[in-house]
């Protein structure tokens, strides 16, 4: 065997090693392409607020730091594996240790961690900063499996303005949200706007304040396991221009206009036989129930069922008739009944026609 043969074999072994090595980076690269190439609504790396942007910068910095350290260890180990593979006539060197080296590689991670710790501490301090006075204050309460939303001071007659599952905010204004829970622990997360903070019963948590810089609709989702329908506890944040936001606020402050026809039948059911007002509220009416989502101007919402289903008359019909066919909600009295599937002699039972009327009424209340 010539020395060239030996070299060739070593190179082949190296190539094979390299292919194995490239497997992970190649997979990583494919995934990075996936991040960049599609418009994913909860992408952490497509920030739309100052806060999400600064977190992303730190996130990318950490990925780069981890890649340098990880790449070093990975290629270092692969080099050692190839270089010191067993060869005939070569004995292992009986090394027991080296204090200087070991002190050295105790200091290296300390050095790297200090570099990571500094922006971390700065970030923690930044998040803890109280919101400015002119911030828009919103109170969000988690429920199994929907979100109650309350704006202080901008409701009808200087009271609170209430809605559910879809949060409207103006662009360019600081948003200060406090989080509470009515039952179990939930977690409020809108990846493009702000990282998550838990909504915990018997506590009031403050979400770090953020200022959205982009108009659009942003997806959010409960991030703490909260029972059967945890996966379907979503919500949306609509970032509007100041003008659009003002119009939205004004509409919600105005009592709903009188309706006629099927919608009027629905209105009578809503306030009467169907008993909806025991749990639901509509601003400017006698409906002031607090157990379920506020339905003021419901017709203008994009979604129903907590950000899950498109708000169409068909979906709303199905929801009222039998919400358990759409969402895994336990059959317990603290949740809304599946009105259509109740026994016919149950006073709460609703027929298809009655549900149609309710749908017509709810969809009639819109933000014009």
């Amino acid at each position: 065997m010539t020395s060239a043969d030996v070299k060739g074999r070593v190179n082949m072994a190296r190539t094979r090693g390299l292919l194995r090595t490239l497997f992970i980076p190649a997979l990583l690269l494919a995934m990075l392409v996936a991040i960049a190439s599609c418009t994913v609504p909860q992408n952490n790396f497509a920030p739309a607020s100052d806060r999400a942007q600064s977190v992303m910068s730190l996130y990318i910095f950490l990925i780069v730091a981890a890649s340098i350290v990880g790449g070093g260890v990975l290629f270092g180990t692969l080099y050692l594996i190839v270089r010191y593979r067993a060869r005939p006539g070569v004995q292992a060197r009986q090394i027991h240790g080296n204090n200087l080296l070991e002190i050295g590689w105790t200091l290296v991670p300390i050095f790297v961690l200090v570099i990571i710790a500094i922006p971390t501490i700065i970030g923690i301090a930044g998040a803890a900063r109280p919101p400015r006075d002119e911030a828009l204050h919103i109170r969000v309460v988690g429920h199994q499996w929907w979100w109650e939303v309350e704006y202080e001071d901008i409701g009808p007659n200087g009271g609170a303005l209430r809605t559910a599952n879809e949060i409207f905010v103006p662009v360019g204004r600081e948003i200060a949200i406090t989080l509470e829970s009515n039952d179990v622990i939930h977690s409020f997360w809108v990846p493009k706007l702000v990282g998550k903070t838990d909504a915990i019963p018997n506590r009031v948590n403050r979400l770090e304040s953020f200022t959205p810089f982009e108009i659009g609709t942003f997806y959010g989702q409960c991030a703490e396991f909260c029972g059967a329908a945890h996966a379907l506890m979503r919500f949306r944040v609509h970032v509007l221009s100041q003008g659009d936001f003002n119009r939205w606020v004004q509409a919600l402050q105005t009592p709903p206009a009188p309706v006629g026809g099927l919608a009027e039948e629905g209105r009578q059911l809503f306030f009467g036989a169907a008993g909806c007002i025991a749990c639901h509220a509509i601003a400017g009416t006698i409906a002031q129930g607090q157990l379920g989502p506020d339905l003021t101007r419901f017709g203008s919402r994009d979604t129903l069922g907590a950000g899950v289903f498109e708000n169409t008359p068909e979906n709303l019909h199905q929801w009222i008739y039998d919400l358990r066919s759409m969402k895994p909600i336990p059959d317990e009295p603290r949740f809304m009944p599946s009105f259509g599937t109740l026994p016919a002699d149950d006073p709460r039972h609703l027929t298809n026609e009655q549900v149609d009327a309710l749908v017509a009424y709810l969809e009639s209340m819109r933000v014009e």
Partner: protein
Amino acid sequence: MATTARVGILQRPLAPTGVWSWITTVDHKRIGILYGVTALIMFLIGGLEALAIRAQLATSDANVISAETFNALFTMHGTTMVFMVVMPAGAAFFNFLIPLMIGARDVAFPRLNAFSYWLFLFGTVLMNVSFLAGAAPDSGWFGYAPLTANTFTPSASVDYWVLGLQVLGLGTLIAGFNFVVTILNLRAPGMTLMRMPVFVWMTLIISFLIIFAFPVLTIALTLLMFDRFFGTNFFAMAAGADPLLWQHFFWIFGHPEVYILILPAMGIVSDVLPTFARKPLFGYATVVFAGAAIAFLGFGVWAHHMFTVGLGAWATGAFAVATMTIAVPTGVKIFNWMATLYGGSLRFQTPMLFALGFILMFMLGGLSGVMHASVPVDTQQQDSYFVVAHFHYVLFGGSVFGLMAGIYYWFPKFTGRMLREGIGKVHFWIMLIGFNLTFMPMHVLGVLGMPRRIYTYSADQGWDLLNGIVSAGAFIIAISLLVFLYNVWTSLRNNPRVTTTNPWGASTLEWSIPNPPPVYNFAVVPTVRSLHPLWDEDANPIDPPALPPVDARAIHMPSPSYWPVVLAGAITLLAAGLLIWKQASLPGLVIMMASGVLMLYSLFRFAVEPATEPVHGHGAHGAAAHH
């Protein structure tokens, strides 16, 4: 007189073979095998749970399993893999190997050791019976209050979880004490602490972790049990409870638990690498102290599981820095393992492949762990798939790869036969590829905003492609396990018995005795003069000088006993009685009282029976025990 203690069905079982000899065994090697086989079976069950989860998540809006089933499966997958797979797999290695490595004939308390195993097995069975009862635990392996309250989970699912964990946790705690006493007291002459193999060191450290961490879980579970069964208000929101109390309890236990899961693998790898590099571990003392430092620091970082609960800037900042410091001893270990390769003569048999896989995969999990310590970034990562990726790199890429290295390495010690090399290599490569295909894309899913523990997602989220890859990877892992099972089956059936005592050319004491070892382990307790007794020729305890032939009957081993299994059964029955009591009070009460009586009786018999039963025809000893 000699027969009065052995009447009727309660006669002490002395037969060396048969089913009863396994049920009543107190031999640490047999108990180790029982732990190992149970862990393997539970690994397959936990794996099937994972496959069902991945089938459901492979596409958006899938309907493979219902939300309720999904929630039960991810709860039981986590609970199973942590408490019923990785922990008992570690226990299997401790049991089989520690006495062999320190030159002892058994653990300090052999019957207590059997008792630990049966508690673990019965606790495991109790919890999994919930599937048959249609009330599988479904509140997450972390069981956060107040979701576990009767108000929010009225079914018996949480009851099974609480009582099953309580029973198996008791076994774990007892094992922790057993191994501390064993390692500190039963070492062979000359085996100083700094001559112990790293695996023994890690076992000692883990045992201390268990002793300090598990009581916290026991207390938390007891409080929850009182809330659920007797109407107390420890975690009752309506009575003004703070739900964070549970989280502090759970993670003060739960974070040391992480190191209970990873340190056995670190110990295994620290012993496998030198054997296949043909040189000593680089910086033995440093690796040992780094392990101890990790364990110590592990008690001071629990709140990094709680960065999003609103602890305030000072607390989160302090816990962030504390968490980062753990990366220092961990990094030191990785550098020392790399340095062990330097200058070596590396042989790439299957144990070595898994050990190298461990180092690299664990390192990746460690790096993503450091990223979580950066609180602002963690607010995006917490409870997302990024976290799922991270802890699977640590627990699968770390613990499972390390345990696999240990299985291939010590298989001849356990069974007397090697595992097939060729199939082993195939197993390794399929598992490595399947593992990375499954868990690497999860990092990206986390970045794309996919939360954990969701049974479904909609198509417009853009998560379909990566979830498809993840699910495919999970099935590749399943294939690699089938290859492994085939390897075990064919090797046990067809491989010849190993003829040498030390097939890998290792340096530690367990390789100085036959494979598998005789029941008494060492015919003559060795005298140890070095960290590498089989490598340092002048320190070799076995040869020379030649040993005189030993009469095995002259070595008195602890006798088998019924009482460990009966006592464990009575305790489990007590827990089952409580479960029944909640549904039907009278039958439950009767069962609890009966099992309470049985428990006290077996405890009494356990206490008074002699550790070693006097043997017939061994007059002097028999008389001495009955004077």
